[in-house]
Structures are given as structure tokens and as C-alpha cells.
């Protein structure tokens, strides 16, 4: 077991022992177990999944939508910091779909550099939300 800390600007979202954590790093999804080599990696938008006990099935995993962030493995601690973390039960699939459509609209209409960056952030965020909502539906219906 290792300790997993998931911290967002709004406070801690997960802090406790975990068996396996899947992280969407910039280079691709990686699964982190106990005694992973020391690593610092940036993340892209996606879903962080946590398997708390070794015997837990996939639908017992906890999922969080994240939009970028940074992960650090050090000793037996894995930390993931992101300004934008949403737990799967806080996401509504319909709303996420609507937000994605709005974000796509924004990306098309964006003019200035800042608007484009903002719109892409929105897009990444709603994609991650939708992804996590779909995972939840698959496992709980």
C-alpha cells in the first residue's frame, strides 16, 4: 500500500492508502503502485482512478476528473496536485455534454490568445467530466 494525496485548490479530495492509482500523464496513462521509482510528471486532462484495496474490482474504483496538474512519487507517497479536480459523483453527464458543446463553440469563436487558452481549458475540463461520467454509468447501471 502507498499513500495517495489528491489535492485541489479547494482542498484535499483524497488522502489515504491506495493500492493502485492510474494517472493521465502528459506522456500517456500510467498506473502507479507501491515502490514506484521517484518521478515528477505533468498531467493532461483526464481521469485519475484509484483502487483502494488490491482485491477491488474495477467498479469499486474511485474516479476523479482532472484538468492538468502535476504528480510526484516520492518514497511511498504519491501526490497529485491540480487546480481542477472533480469527483465522479459531482459530475452530471447531461450537464457535462452541454458544457462540452459550449466549450467547442467557444473554441471556434475565440479570437485573442487568452480566449483561445481559456476555451481550450474549458474543453479539456468538460471532456474529463464527460469521461468520468461515462465510467460511472458503465459501472453503476
Amino acid at each position: 500500500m502507498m499513500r495517495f494525496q489528491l489535492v485541489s485548490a479547494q482542498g484535499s479530495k483524497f488522502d489515504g492508502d491506495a493500492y493502485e492509482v492510474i494517472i493521465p500523464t502528459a506522456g500517456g496513462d500510467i498506473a502507479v503502485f507501491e515502490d514506484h521509482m521517484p518521478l515528477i510528471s505533468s498531467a493532461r486532462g483526464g481521469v485519475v482512478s484509484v483502487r483502494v484495496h488490491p482485491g477491488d474490482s474495477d467498479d469499486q474504483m474511485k474516479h476523479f476528473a482532472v484538468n492538468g496538474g502535476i504528480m510526484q512519487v516520492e518514497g511511498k507517497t504519491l501526490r497529485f496536485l491540480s487546480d481542477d479536480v472533480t469527483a465522479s459523483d459531482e459530475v452530471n453527464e447531461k450537464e457535462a455534454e452541454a458544457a462540452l458543446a459550449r466549450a467547442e463553440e467557444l473554441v471556434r469563436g475565440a479570437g485573442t490568445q487568452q480566449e483561445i487558452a481559456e476555451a481550450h481549458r474549458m474543453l479539456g475540463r468538460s471532456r474529463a467530466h464527460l469521461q468520468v461520467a461515462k465510467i460511472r454509468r458503465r459501472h453503476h447501471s
Partner: protein
Amino acid sequence: MAQTRTLQRRIRSVKNAKQITKALEVVAASRMRRVVQLVEGSRTYGELAAAIIAKIAANPEAHRLPYFSPATDKPALYVVISSDRGQAGAFNSNIFHAAMQDFRQERTRPQVIVFGRKGARFFSRLGGIDLRGTYENIEDVPDVNVFSAAMEAVIGGLAEGQIGRVSIIYTQFISSLSQKAVSLQLFPANLPPAGEAPQTVPEFEPDITDVLEEGIRLYLQARLMQAKVESAASEHAMRMVAMGNANRNASDLIDNLTLELNATRQAAITQEIAEITGGAAAIAD
């Protein structure tokens, strides 16, 4: 009689003021409680981000970057967090005092970004600085997006070498009775002492520049968020105390005025009786 009326009017107006201060005190207390719960979380976030930055900075490749090595000849950028509303005791004047103290030590014209209406007014009238931006009507615990323009200015300015140092001036929340205006240097990142040699050298993925970019962004955002949340908690705490004092002061004032009113009314009655008995005695003679 004229004097008793004036006194009555003054008592009424002090009572009104007392009701307002009471209401402000109650509102400040409840808002403070809500924000204080978030202070702890924002501190954890800030500290973890700083810890990761420290790890990155230990790498020799990162050391020569402007985020870590000071350029003393370039102007400094200050991010100042004030409040939108007054009546919070010395909240804003403490912040301005701390800022002025820092500015006096600057050899170049300091650049300033201000959050809060009170600060925006103060710094727009102040000479000798470059006001880079002002942001008003920001919530106690804002969405991270409100900082994006300020972050752009900081990261862009450092990367292009326009600024050499970045500090944030905010009010640290120690407890509901104690708050302190502090100036915290963000860049060059003030890192924990590098005394202990890093036992483990972490791997960076995809590469150090990419990780550093994201890390710096998170670190800056975390610190701004923490400063804003702590300032909001402090503002409400100070307003609560200031309004509590004002409320007690109003009670004292009402007591004194009531005593004075009673005395003048009694004096008027005594005078009238004296006049009546005097008049009666004159008729009887």
C-alpha cells in the same frame, strides 16, 4: 425642551448605527467561519506545490532559469491583495503600510497588480509605481480563473526578463483574533534550505521544462489562491472585531446620552415647578 429633542434625536441615530454595526458583525462572523474552513485546504495545496517546485529546483538544469536565480537589476512585481469593502478595522491600511515599506527599498520602479477596490483606489493615486492591473469584486474563494491574467503577467514577465522578482502582499490569517500583513517572495522561489542532499533524484516526464512549466503555474496559482483565501478570512475576522467594538461603543454612547437626557428633562421639570410656585407665590402676595 429644545435640548431634550436634540438628545432624543441623537439617541435614535446612535441606535440605528448600532443596529447596522450589529448586522455587519453577524454577517462578518458567519462569512469568516465559512472561509476559515477553506484556509487549511489552500495551505496544504500551497505547501505541496512549493515542495514539488523545490524538488524541481534541486535539479541543476533548472537552477539557471529566472524562476530560481534572482535578477536584481530588474524591477520587482508586487501582487497586493486588499478588500473591496471598508469597515474592517486596519485591514487595508496594514496592507498599504506593508507595501509602502517594501517599495521604499526598491531601487527601480515597482510594478503592482492589485486585487480589491480599496487597493485599486489607493495605488492608482500613488506615484512612483507602475500599476499593471486592478481587479475588483472578487469572491472570498474565487474560481482559479480570476488569477489567469495576473499569472500571465508574472510568468510572461519572468520568462521575458522584464521583471526580476515577484512578491505577494496579503494578510496572513493566524487566528480569528490575530492577522498579520505579510510580504511573501514568490520568485525567485524561496526554497527550503538545500542543506540535505537529495537522497533520491526523481525522473521527469515528459521532460524537465514541461514539468517545470506546469509546476510553476500550479505553484503560482496555489500561492495566489492561498493568499486570497487567507486575506478573505482575515478581512472578515477584522471586520467582526471592528464592528463588535463599534457596537459596544454605540451602547456606551446610548447609555451616556440617556443619562444626559434624563438629567435635562428633570432640570426642565424642576424649572417649570419653580416657575409655577414662584408665580403662585406672586399672586398670593
